[in-house]
């Protein structure tokens, strides 16, 4: 069963990568005679019958901004309620109901936009682009879940995020993914975050929005490729709990780190752990840590040596990955429309391609100098070179820290929810006999 799970993960990864790589390779060449800013060739009519012109073009109003404040209010209320349900009421059923509500409201009703995951990009863009001001509602969407995670753990993931909810609903036959594999796959999430930040900072694209796998379901329309990726995630999600959340979600990566420090968090048992092992298999996300003894002296020494080696290796890894990241600048910078256009114009000028694209025609119609465009594009490439160093260094750090996890050991006496990985879904409560005892006592007290 586990091997089957691996194949599914591998397929999902390959499909996702293919989709990212294939992307949109510019537009098909097409005859185009349009000119920009067409002149107004004909004089206005002089009606002899005194005909009056109809009113100016219709301009329907946008959705009122009050609704966006309502969205923020709903988000805040859902986060407060989720924290209460997870930490105080400890009811999986109530969490489930709130989760379905969030899926309906933020997903199907509000069409999955704007979400905290995508808001990362708005925040990054507003930091790097002086002309872009981030709307207050988007800032609230970004910050509120972070603050709640810092205090109460990943309650946002458990019952508020519509992307998490749709995956949680389809999870029917959970298969456990071994820790080393899960940890390895999570590298994708860090890479995704890094790339999303890189593309947002350079003003190239909002990668997270472009490859949001479930938004097509929420809108019941959209790009076929994305629909297929989403369907793959849901099929994989039948067996592997929340594959997007665990292995790809860029916001989840930030929440993981904050959740490590959370003030309050999910406890499996309401009072004491009796070590019954009943909760061991309850968690479909591999977030329950077993009790562990202290390391023996020999293992301790070996661990210490490995740790020292890995810490020495860390700067080398960071530098190497940074260098490798900067090598990719010609590939990554193609995400930026200016670079894409400059490359196309270069090929056309050099006579290496026949015909034109809409973009190259539009550029030529502006009458701009080709040299200007090249200069601008090489400037953008320069940004991508710096970004590549930073992104590569970040990935090196991530991989290095992940490796050091091999050499550290934590002693545990009880079964505990992993601070970082626990999605606060509440499945583990149900299986704890101490919890059942607490509930039956509560029932008796009520009756």
């Amino acid at each position, binding site marked *: 069963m586990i091997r089957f799970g691996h194949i599914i993960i591998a397929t999902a990864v390959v499909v996702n990568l293919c989709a990212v790589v294939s992307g949109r390779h510019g537009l098909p060449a097409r005859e185009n005679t349009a000119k920009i800013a067409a002149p107004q*060739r004909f004089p206005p009519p002089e009606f002899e*019958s005194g005909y009056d012109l109809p009113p100016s073009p219709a301009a329907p109003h*946008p959705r009122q901004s009050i609704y966006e404040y309502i969205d923020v209010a709903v988000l805040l209320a859902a986060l407060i309620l989720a924290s209460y349900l997870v930490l105080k009421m400890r009811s999986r059923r109530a969490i489930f109901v709130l989760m379905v509500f969030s899926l309906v409201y933020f997903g199907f009703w509000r069409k999955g936009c704007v979400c905290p995951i995508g808001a990362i990009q708005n925040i990054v863009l507003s930091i790097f682009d002086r002309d872009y001001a981030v709307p207050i509602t988007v800032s609230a969407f970004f*910050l509120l879940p972070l603050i709640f995670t810092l205090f109460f753990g990943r309650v946002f993931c458990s019952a508020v995020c519509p992307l998490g909810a749709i995956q949680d609903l389809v999870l029917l036959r959970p298969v456990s993914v071994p820790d080393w594999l899960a940890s390895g796959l999570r590298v994708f999430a860090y890479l995704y975050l890094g790339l999303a930040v890189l593309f947002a900072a350079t003003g190239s694209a909002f990668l997270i929005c472009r490859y949001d796998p479930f938004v097509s379901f929420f809108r019941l329309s959209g790009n076929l490729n994305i629909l297929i990726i989403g369907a793959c995630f849901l099929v994989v999600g039948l067996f592997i709990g929340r594959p997007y959340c665990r292995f790809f979600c860029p916001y989840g990566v930030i929440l993981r780190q904050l959740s490590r420090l959370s003030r309050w968090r999910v406890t499996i048992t309401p009072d004491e752990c009796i070590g019954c092992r009943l909760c061991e298999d309850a968690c479909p996300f591999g977030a329950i840590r077993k009790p562990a003894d202290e390391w023996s002296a020999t293992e301790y020494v070996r661990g210490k040596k490995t740790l020292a080696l890995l810490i020495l290796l860390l700067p080398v890894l960071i530098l190497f990955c940074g260098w490798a990241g900067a090598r990719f600048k010609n590939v990554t910078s193609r995400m930026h429309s200016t670079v894409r256009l400059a490359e196309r114009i270069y090929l056309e000028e050099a006579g290496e391609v026949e015909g034109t694209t809409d973009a190259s025609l539009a550029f030529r119609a502006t009458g701009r100098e080709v040299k200007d465009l090249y200069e601008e594009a090489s400037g953008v490439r320069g940004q991508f070179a710096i970004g590549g160093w930073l992104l590569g260094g970040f990935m090196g750090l991530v991989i290095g820290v992940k490796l050091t996890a091999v050499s550290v050991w934590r*002693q545990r006496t009880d079964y505990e929810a992993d601070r970082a990985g626990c999605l606060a879904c509440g499945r583990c409560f149900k299986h704890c006999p101490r919890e059942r005892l607490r509930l039956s006592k509560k029932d008796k007290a009520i009756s």
Partner: protein
Amino acid sequence: MAENKNDISRRNLLRNGFFGTCLAGLGGLAGLLAGRLGKTRTLWQIDPNICIACGNCATRCVLEESAVKCTHDFEICGYCEICFGFFEPEPYDITEGAENQSCPTGAIKRKYIEDPYYEYTIDESLCIGCGKCVKGCMTFGNGALFLQVRHDRCLNCNECSIAAACPSGAFKRVPAERPYILKKVGHA
């Protein structure tokens, strides 16, 4: 056991330190964002002076029926008898027959006003935002027809998928108070 307790308290001290740092960091970020806050939210719109009417608007929108529709500015319109927004470039005949029309959905209505003027109105419920008429009017006429995002339909996606595919960079974020970009009236 005593050693263990020390260990735990050291870990807690570190944890509290990081917690405080993160809280301060989030506060700092909030402050930074407060300084960068937009007074208003933004919406997507097409700058008709840059748009080349490539046709992506009809197909790239996440909505089944695109949020982009054609707008007709009557003040710019020349009320031409032979309108190349309405007619194919080489029509069989100057009549309202479907074979002569450039609009694939027949969304433009042609009405006789007086010799030699005809008025063209767009039935928005039929318009799919393909921009065929826009291109015709831009190439041969006054450019009175142009594409605009209809904000009663637009979902205002965080990244507009038409904008991502726009070859001329005509899509931009505009303040929500002035959500339409109309062409300037200025006859030759």
